[in-house]
């Protein structure tokens, strides 16, 4: 597991039925491209988050494939339509096999 990885999520706690809400996510990660070299000329191995998903009540909201050109601490902002009370599930997949998760409940009322 890469060091210093910490997911952060900003999602509304409540919404009206059928409302389209904005979600923001950011995960601290060094996103090493695999193209850089260290002081001795050796290639620094690639270490990035290669996939990010958001689900709401089992339905996929976004499923993103990430490539090495994406910056350090990747940030996503996207919208989701909320039909029923439930939970947003956010998942990040690291090159090294680690999976980072976050969740945020949302109430329709």
């Amino acid at each position, binding site marked *: 597991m890469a060091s*210093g990885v*910490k997911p*952060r999520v*900003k999602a509304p706690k409540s919404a009206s039925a059928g409302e389209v809400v904005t979600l*923001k996510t*950011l995960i*601290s990660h060094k996103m090493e491209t695999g193209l850089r070299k260290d002081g001795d000329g050796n290639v620094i191995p690639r270490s990035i988050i290669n996939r990010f998903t958001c689900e709401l009540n089992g339905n996929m909201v976004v499923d993103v494939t990430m490539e090495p050109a994406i*910056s*350090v*601490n990747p*940030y996503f902002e996207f919208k989701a339509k909320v039909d029923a009370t439930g939970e947003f599930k956010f998942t990040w997949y690291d090159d090294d096999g680690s999976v980072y998760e976050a969740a945020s409940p949302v109430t329709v009322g």
Partner: protein
Amino acid sequence: MKAKMLRKVAGLAVATAMAAAPAVADEDAELVINGEIEIVTRTAAPAHLDGHLNEVISGWVFRSDRTQAMEMDDFDNPGMLFVDQARDIWATAEGSEGKSCADCHGEPEEMAGVKPVYPKWSDSAGQVMTLQMQVNECRTERMGAEAWGVDKGGSIPMEALLSSVSRGMPMNVAIDGPAQETWEKGKEIYYTRFGQLELSCASCHEENYGNMIRADHLSQGQINGFPTYRLKNTKLNGVHSRFKGCIRDTRAHTFNPGSPEFVALELYVASRGNGLSVEGPSVRN
């Protein structure tokens, strides 16, 4: 003075309207963080700047709309990642005494009001101390832990944390009494031309702020927003490292971060921003 600034801006708008302009800041924008912390980004200059500046302006004003917006919400401000890191450090016991920052100081929020008065004269140390030096004194004297390097290790995140809890408070460093000698020294450095390009701090940040230096929009060089998250290097940058970069760009041999010269310069430059709100961790390009 306001008229002078506006004239400069008007000239700039004409010059840049022709080419595909770099994003030019909205000079009248107001900075409110998280919809609740009101930040003073322009105010009357402190008395010691009589004859030099009439108004002091935060670097935030000079940045593009999109960069400005990143600082308006803590979630969008990447500098806050380092503040989160520092909260963990704050609560972690270190050193031979087995103490953490929290054991003596409680919550970081209780340190509100500390950042605005640093750098500050310390009787016990017999010198002007920057906030980083003060933190290190705590670490070595009270915690029995190793000191962090200047702008290295935990220094910057910790400074960002202490700054973040003081946001909105006016900068108010003391320049009289025992600190005066150091302040005078900093002032001398500020107005001394360095390097092959023979530029002083004042050449750009006092006489030409608001103008472009090649592709860069010159600010007043205020440090109320430090530590600063720079989009160009995607990390928090300390004041001394920034000074070093600036002096290097004049093609001079620079002073080292942590040197007495930079401590004096930090005190002097901080005093030029007395009255502006503490803003760090800020976002700049």
